[in-house]
């Protein structure tokens, strides 16, 4: 990449920082220069988030229909998976899978709910009524 070809496209990094790029100058020597971003990777990140949003919406629908507990929705919303939730809460993955059933979720202890609420950064009330608050 030549120094004058370093892209300066709008990116999610705007307002946070610019990033260091390595490129060659006119005499072929490597130099560094700050870049605002590159459209190609901004769109890679963009479609990744569109896909996450889609999964969140799907999970929400299933929660609304009573097919899954609100935990399923928050797992998607916080870009987690069973392993991550398990690592943070200390629950086994199969336990979490059970908690995804609305019938099991209803009977969860306050202590268990609090663990999820802490991880998802919501109150227990919000967790229970995610279909209203989302």
């Amino acid at each position, binding site marked *: 990449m030549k120094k004058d070809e370093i892209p300066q496209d709008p990116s999610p990094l705007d307002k946070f920082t610019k990033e260091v790029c390595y490129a060659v100058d006119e005499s072929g020597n490597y130099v560094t220069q700050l870049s605002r971003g590159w459209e190609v990777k901004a*769109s890679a990140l963009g479609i990744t988030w569109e896909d996450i949003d889609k999964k969140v919406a799907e999970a929400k629908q299933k929660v609304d229909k009573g097919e899954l507990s609100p935990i399923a929705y928050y797992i998607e919303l916080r870009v987690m998976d069973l392993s991550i939730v398990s*690592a943070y809460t200390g629950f086994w993955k199969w336990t979490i899978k059970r908690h995804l059933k609305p019938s099991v979720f209803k009977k969860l202890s306050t202590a268990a709910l609090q663990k999820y609420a802490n991880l998802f950064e919501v109150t227990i009330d919000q967790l229970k009524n995610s279909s209203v608050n989302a």
Partner: protein
Amino acid sequence: MPNTFQHLQAAHCENGVTTNLLRSVGVTQITEPLAFGIGSGLFFIYIPLMKINGGPAIAFRTMPGLIFKRTAQSLGIEVVRKTFSSPAKAQQFLDDCIKSGQPVGCQVGVYFLSYFPKEYRFHFNAHNLIVYGKEGDNYLVSDPVMETTNVLSTYELERVRFAKGALAPKGQVYFPKAAKPVSDDQIRRAIVTGVKRNVRDMLHIPGPIAGVSGIKYTGNKIKNWRDKLGVEKAGLYLAQLVRMQEEIGTGGGGFRFIYGAFLQQAHAYHKNDSLLEISKSFTQSGDLWRNAAVQAAGIYKGRITSQADFNIMGDYLLEISELEKKAFKELSKVQWQK
């Protein structure tokens, strides 16, 4: 002890932490490209069956932690490295270091890293930063990928140091044990070690999924992605490839440009002009990776989605694999200055 730590921005977090920590103990010659090259940072691996955020597990650099370890080791600098089971002990240790004037490298997760833009906050646990001071309840943080320094509260820092999941940092801290200047001769030898190790990792690593053969393997896989995954999911996979290749931290072109810069800087220590020529091959490879990213973008934006477009995409990687194989073979033949 007065706080003399100097924040220098780098392309990549671990390179930057390594460079800044080594400078803080008097290794004045060290730069980001030298740290990357001496640490044999250039790599490629595609791990089939493993998924990251539902997409393919692809890396363009060596395992997290290795660059600092190898670079310090090659320069004869002893390293302190510790993980903790108790956050309180981890904080105490950090506080003691800072009080004695020791800047500390920390492994952290980015998901709860408050100064990062939301779009970048995935559950990725191998980010690196330096804590160099404390004011009241706030830690002074030098994150090499950021233009300026940042602040994290005690709670925020604990949260990122004890992020959970894959590669959980467990409060890991690391820093050079003692201040120790390094001679140009040591740098010269460390460059040779670094290059030879990188040749080994890229050319001779067993199995088809890593090094230059890993690039070829991935190229061939990509050609099947359209049939196997469908256009939409294949597009998401390609977006993940592009993110690993180009995202903040890579310096562009999947670290290939940083490696090109390393070979130019190595030339200052080994007056062998073939280093400059081989550097050009890595520039060319970085450019090809970027052309491939443009092709990938055409696919994940839904502009070009035929099998022929996937074939072109895969062929880019086959071409890159050949080019890098040739470049590393030439590197393996370089006559080093004693």
